[in-house]
């Protein structure tokens, strides 16, 4: 009985910890399948978490928090879009800038407003998302639903076809009479919405308020999951659940000696997502080929 309940607890927290990863991973999927590399996932999650924490506290409504979280994340996504699509800048540099901007701004503004070292005040009652089914909040089910939605849109709709094409060969899309710029902006905005969802979940469902740096590298683990999933939606769910499971285990195994091995350092388990990704990139388990035009600004050639 004790063993069974341990398993259930681990599975439960696996799902909880996977949701922010899943949101960010799908966000990355949309962006990169359109040819825009997004390492600013972390920054968007963080900005969304802060905006959601502040707005939910102010209004007392978790849903207003979600709206604010999505708004903040989409605003950063548009900055990234402007830099990398309109201005054809370096997408990595733009992403890094967004990460730094979000890390600095959230802590600074948070401290100026609330004077609690950057935290937002604790959320209570309707300011937090409560469990609606099996103890999980609505955001969990919205995020899970995004997996089949993403898979369907990419495979079966006009928008999805064009999106896949523009990430592989923008010139083919351009000569077919379709705007490369509009498609990529659309994808970047979708990525913003998804990160907004993930960030809000962190601040208003998983925790009860914003903490500086609370994303703790999840945006980067999501990128690793994206590579692991080879830029496909269902495998992305699998990868995020796996990485969420490893995170849950690292919490569970703190200070617990394993038979025959002894006490496993927490850091070793926390490093697993990265180790798995490196192994994958090194050629184990098939090659992970990114969308061909990812990271390359589209310029009409002479």
């Amino acid at each position: 009985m004790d063993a069974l309940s341990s398993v259930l607890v681990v599975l439960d927290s696996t799902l909880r910890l996977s949701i922010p990863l899943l949101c960010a991973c799908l966000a990355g999927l949309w962006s990169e399948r359109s040819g825009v590399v997004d390492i600013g996932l972390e920054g968007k999650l963080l900005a969304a978490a802060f905006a959601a924490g502040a707005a939910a506290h102010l209004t007392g409504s978790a849903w207003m928090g979600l709206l604010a979280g999505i708004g903040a994340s989409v605003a950063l996504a548009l900055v990234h879009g402007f830099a990398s699509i309109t201005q054809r800048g370096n997408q990595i540099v733009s992403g890094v800038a967004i990460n730094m901007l979000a890390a600095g701004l959230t802590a600074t503004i948070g401290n100026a407003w609330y004077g609690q070292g950057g935290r937002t005040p604790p959320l209570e009652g309707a300011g937090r998302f409560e469990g609606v089914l099996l103890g999980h909040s609505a955001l969990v089910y919205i995020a899970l639903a995004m997996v089949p939605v993403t898979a369907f849109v990419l495979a079966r709709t006009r928008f999805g076809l064009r999106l896949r094409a523009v990430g592989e060969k923008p010139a083919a899309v351009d000569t077919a009479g379709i705007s490369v710029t509009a498609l990529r902006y659309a994808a970047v905005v979708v990525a913003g919405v998804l990160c907004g969802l993930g960030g809000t979940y962190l601040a208003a469902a998983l925790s009860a308020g914003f903490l500086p740096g609370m994303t703790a590298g999840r945006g980067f683990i999501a990128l690793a999951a994206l590579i692991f999933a080879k830029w496909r939606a269902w495998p992305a769910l699998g990868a995020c659940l796996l990485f969420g499971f490893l995170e849950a285990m690292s919490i569970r195994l703190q200070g617990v000696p394993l038979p025959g091995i002894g006490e496993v350092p927490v850091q070793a388990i926390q490093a697993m997502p990265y180790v798995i990704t490196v192994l994958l990139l090194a050629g184990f388990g098939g090659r992970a080929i990114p969308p061909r035009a990812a990271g390359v600004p589209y310029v009409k050639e002479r």
Partner: protein
Amino acid sequence: MNPAIELIKIDKSFGPVHANRAVDLRVERGTIHGIVGENGAGKSTLMSILYGFYEADSGEIRVNGEPVRIRSSADAIEAGIGMVHQHFMLVETLTVLENVMLGAEGGALLARGTARVRAELRRLSDDYGLVIDPDAEVGDLSVGLQQRVEIIKALYRGADILILDEPTAVLTPPEAEALFGLLRALRAQGKTVILITHKLHEIMAITDRVSVMRRGEMVAHLNTASTSPPELAEAMVGRRVLLRVEKGARAPGAPLLEVEGLSVADMLGVFRVQDVSFQVRAGEIVGIAGVAGNGQSELLEAIAGMRPVAAGTIRFEGRELAAEDRDPHELRRRGLLHVPEDRLRMGLVPQFEAFESAALGFTDDPAFARGPLLDHGRMVEDLAAKMEKYDVRPPSPRLKTSLFSGGNQQKIVLAREIERGPKVLLIGQPTRGVDIGAIEFIHRRLVELRDAGVGILLVSVELEEVMSLSDRILVLCGGRLTGERRPDGTDERDLGLLMAGVEDAA
């Protein structure tokens, strides 16, 4: 009847480059109209304007007599214009079906459009023999089939006017014949075809009328039936040119380069060259013909020491090259020089000033050294002398390499390698992207080297070039030698069969 296309005083500049000057063009409906000109004459720019890739600075476009404004490819498609680009505009990871649909999906969900495309593909395959598997991934198709997908794409969008930009550059002769058959069938159905090419024999074989461009201007509009290749060549260049390379009888000497049972594998372990054996003797040009991507590049790079050899031996001046000798630097020191196929990727550094590019690989030459430093003054002088000899324009050693035209870049690479006194010269695609005037010069220079006793291994996808320069022709297909010919004992059809992999019966 109104002409299908009428261009009136089209003008277009890119910064200081005046790509099209007051260009007029009239293409009658239901004809095949050729446009010829040297590289950089403005053909592709003109067609890009017609297809909405660029907008003209001034001028007017009329389609079927109606003035139209074409600001994007969508406008061109709307006007019934379709284009088959030289570099295919296909998404390789998508299927044929998805590529054909892209931009003409027929609804937010793909399901309905899919059925329509399938029906249309069947109709096109019945009408024109354009057979293709709709569910094949485009990246898995041969180049000829990919081109077919491009044509189907244009026809599916309802194109009445089809522009083809250098369509045969990537095809084997039989594939090119098949393409011409298709173009004739399209003409018979009343479609209008515009064919951009620099191959005069294609113009003669298939077009009804031909327009000649030179330096951004239209210089002649001719009826194909009443013109000739020399007349066209003269119009393109502005002076008389020799289409044939003049060369004397050969007097080959001792074997300089002997390749035996050579196999080369790529990074994935796939064999790109298999069991190839041949010799290059002093004073002889050996040409390697083949469709691009059949192992020529790998063969050349392996001999030049740039790629590991999987099996077989290479002998240079009678001595076998051990693995440790097969180093590009060591080989060049010993007189085996290499003009790589892709000069911008392997032969030059586009961002360098020309004199720096011209010293690549020879930077440890004492003539360029001043103590441990490079002597820029002497490097500049050295290139200035070569530029004069090779007629490089402009003769400015300090100009950035990328600012020279393709032909002049090629001359810089050639001068660098040839002036080092090679014993064996490996040369890939010597005239790719080079205009007729420079081609003539390069060909003459190669023949001079041959007559001086240099052994030359020439790789080119231009069959005419291989046939006119070589003393012996080897044909590669799928990494294997499929035959050897003497240029006077063969023709394009014969070589085409070998290039397509029909093994030599003899």
